[in-house]
């Protein structure tokens, strides 16, 4: 499509910017709904105006005219001709959804309008007291735009002689999309009577691409007078006017958060500050390198101090550069949090609950990969909190609480981890129901003596649900086990704290990045292993008498009042030349998968940051090893997977 081809690169930027504009519109509308000030209307208007202008410029007339309707309505509000009220906010929110859909379709190269967008457009016009342009819309829909086209093409006999070859025309048509060509041979004369320069064939061509009628016509421009041409939308593929949209149901509202999470693109926006910082550092590196270069020409022992200084600087700059490069991948969690106001609003309305959403720590940064994957589990937790956790106003009043429930999302850094909390002040876990269900499912025998934590753990069992009534939400066949699995795929953990009558707190703990870990390098024979710093509790040297051997060959040692098993890494990984006597080596106490073990190694070499290289990608999955890294001397060290080692040990014990 030559008319828009040159614009393609700008269209992408336009779409990205517009999606941001839509986010702004949405959050401002939600703020307005909560009684925000008039400045918000201006913000929304400006966003809509930019989208309209861009859409018209970059070849999306449908989008421009749709936005124009919304903009007109906003203009009336802005000019004080109309007071903003719930129905208007509702309609504008739906317009935002429609525009998002249009952008999705624009990316996929599909027709922009669909039944919903036309309906919303009609409603916008109706709200402004004008007859909906629906008739025109439908006329256009049937006329100019379709999912697929049937083209009937019968060249006149003289067309070939005129130098126009149907073969070339159909080839050109194939450039628009996939074709199904059927030749009509019914008009062919007898061979003896054939004049080879005359065309007696015709074609019925199905073009399976949502292009405009003009684009098809353009192919046949030159032969208009030399053929019979009919271009019709393929009957079943015409976008038929659908029934008015059913009010958005709960499942749809709930799905919205998920859908947005999946629509992520493969690019990162980086602030100029970050880039400038890196350029600065690179500059410093170059200077240091130039300084060190002078030693190459002549080395005078008197300048040793200078050399050492240079090397120190080099090391510092390299580390800083590494940090800032890693920082590019770090994005504020706000992009995940931002989808919740809408989700919470829609869900609470459908469920007849009053929910106040509090967001904290939106500026907390975490790795983009982690960020993309944390959205779904969070949506799940939020959905659960509103559906199961928070009570209806009646129940809250009966319990002596305010009608309005509070849902809090909080993100902060703790150590090398990021912690995300989803908390509500609802009814808390129903211990009785959970224990009852667990007994029914045979998970436990009785609830007696079970701590609250242990009861909380039960809800993470696959397929566990205590919902008395299956709602749109709880009937979706995904449970807390999926949340836990998703989070542990990211190397994190989920825990729950709950107090009856006071609410629940779900805590997700995640590593800041998946690309680099801090670890201790441990020597085992000739091998080096990296033990992640986060899982290390302490390292101790044991005397032979501290080691107890139990039946079955296991070894235990006493550590702060509890007996921990000793895992000899050289045995587990089969290393030669390792120390065997317990007093010669070192025991690193580590924690993983909720239990502690001691890892017996020859000794510790030092602490270092390890750039994680996937073993799975480069080799295959190895039990007890989460990846590999390359050490300063160029040799490869394996990174131990503590949880895996603990499980490995458990299996050996059982065997």
């Amino acid at each position, binding site marked *: 499509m030559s008319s828009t081809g040159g614009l393609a690169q700008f269209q992408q930027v336009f779409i990205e910017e517009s999606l941001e504009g839509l986010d702004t519109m949405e959050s401002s509308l939600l703020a307005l709904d909560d009684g925000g000030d008039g400045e918000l209307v201006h913000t929304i208007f400006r966003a809509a105006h930019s989208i309209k202008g861009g859409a018209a410029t970059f070849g999306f007339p449908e989008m421009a005219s749709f936005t124009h309707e919304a903009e007109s309505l906003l203009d009336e509000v802005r000019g004080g001709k109309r007071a903003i009220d719930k129905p208007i906010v509702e309609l504008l929110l739906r317009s935002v959804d429609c525009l998002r859909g249009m952008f999705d379709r624009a990316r996929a190269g599909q027709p922009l309008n669909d039944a919903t967008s036309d309906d919303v457009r009609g409603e916008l016009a109706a709200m402004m007291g004008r007859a909906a342009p629906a008739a025109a819309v439908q006329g256009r829909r049937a006329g100019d735009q379709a999912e697929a086209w049937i083209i009937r093409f019968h060249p006149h006999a003289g067309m070939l002689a005129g130098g126009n070859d149907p073969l070339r025309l*159909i080839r050109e048509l194939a450039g628009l999309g996939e074709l199904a060509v059927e030749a009509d041979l019914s008009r062919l004369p007898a061979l003896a009577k054939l004049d*080879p320069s005359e065309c007696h*064939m015709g074609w019925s061509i199905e073009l399976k691409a949502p292009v405009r009628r003009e684009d098809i016509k353009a192919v046949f421009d030159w032969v208009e007078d030399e053929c019979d041409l009919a271009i019709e939308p393929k009957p079943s593929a015409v976008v038929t006017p659908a029934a008015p949209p059913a009010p958005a149901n709960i499942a749809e509202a709930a799905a919205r958060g998920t859908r947005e999470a999946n629509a992520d693109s493969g690019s990162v926006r980086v602030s100029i500050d970050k880039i400038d910082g890196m350029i600065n550092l690179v500059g410093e590196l170059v200077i240091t390198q130039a300084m060190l270069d002078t030693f190459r020409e002549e080395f005078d022992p008197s300048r040793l101090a200078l050399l050492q200084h240079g090397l120190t600087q080099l090391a510092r700059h390299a580390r800083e550069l590494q940090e800032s490069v890693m920082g590019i991948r770090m994005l504020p969690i706000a992009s995940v949090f931002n989808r919740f106001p809408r989700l919470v609003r829609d869900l609470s309305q459908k469920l007849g609950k009053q929910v106040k959403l509090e967001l904290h720590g939106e500026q907390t940064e975490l790795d983009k990969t982690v960020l993309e994957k944390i959205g779904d589990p969070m949506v799940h937790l939020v959905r659960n909190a509103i559906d199961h956790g928070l009570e209806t106003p009646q129940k809250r009043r009966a319990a002596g609480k305010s009608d309005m429930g509070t849902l809090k999302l909080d993100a902060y850094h703790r150590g090398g981890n990021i912690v995300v909390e989803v908390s509500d002040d609802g009814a808390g876990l129903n211990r009785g129901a959970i224990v009852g269900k667990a007994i029914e499912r045979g998970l436990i025998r009785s609830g007696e003596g079970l701590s609250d934590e242990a009861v909380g753990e039960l809800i993470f069992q696959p397929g566990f649900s205590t919902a008395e009534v299956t709602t749109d939400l709880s009937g979706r066949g995904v449970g807390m086990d999926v949340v836990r699995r998703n989070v542990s795929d990211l190397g994190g953990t989920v825990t729950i704290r709950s107090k009856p009558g006071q609410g629940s707190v779900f805590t997700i703990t995640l590593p800041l990045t998946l690309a680099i870990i801090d670890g201790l390098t441990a020597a085992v024979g000739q091998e080096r292993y990296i033990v992640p710093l986060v899982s290390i509790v302490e390292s101790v040297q044991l005397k032979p008498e501290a080691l107890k051997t139990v039946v079955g060959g296991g070894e235990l040692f006493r550590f702060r009042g509890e007996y921990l098993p000793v895992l000899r890494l050289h045995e587990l990984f089969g290393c030669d030349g390792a120390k065997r006597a317990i007093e010669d080596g070192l025991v690193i106490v580590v924690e993983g998968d909720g239990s502690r073990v001691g890892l017996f190694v020859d000794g510790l070499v030092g602490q270092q940051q390890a750039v994680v290289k996937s073993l799975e990608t480069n080799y295959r999955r190895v039990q007890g090893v989460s990846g590999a890294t390359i050490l300063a001397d160029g040799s490869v060290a394996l990174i131990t997977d503590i949880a895996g080692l603990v499980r490995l040990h458990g299996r050996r014990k059982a065997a």
Partner: protein
Amino acid sequence: MGSKREHSAPAAVEIGLPADCRMAAQAALLAELLGALDAPATQLDGSAVERVDTAALQLLTLFRREALSRGCAVSWRGASTTLCEAAETLGLIKALDLPAAVPA
């Protein structure tokens, strides 16, 4: 070429299509094909075809249809990609019994 009828033992005719198999070449081709209509079997060789147009494919389609209706066999000894591709574009793969072009 009306002499074919005199043959008592039916013989297969082989027709090679020229490299430039476009309209200009077709008067000759038509004559050759007309003659082949009398043979019990015709083998077409399109392996040399480098350029082809609608007129050529129309001619071949018509020939094959008539030959088949007379009970004569028409087969391909070879067909160039160009030929197959063109036949595919025009929706004549079946009518010509050509192999579908391998996607380029």
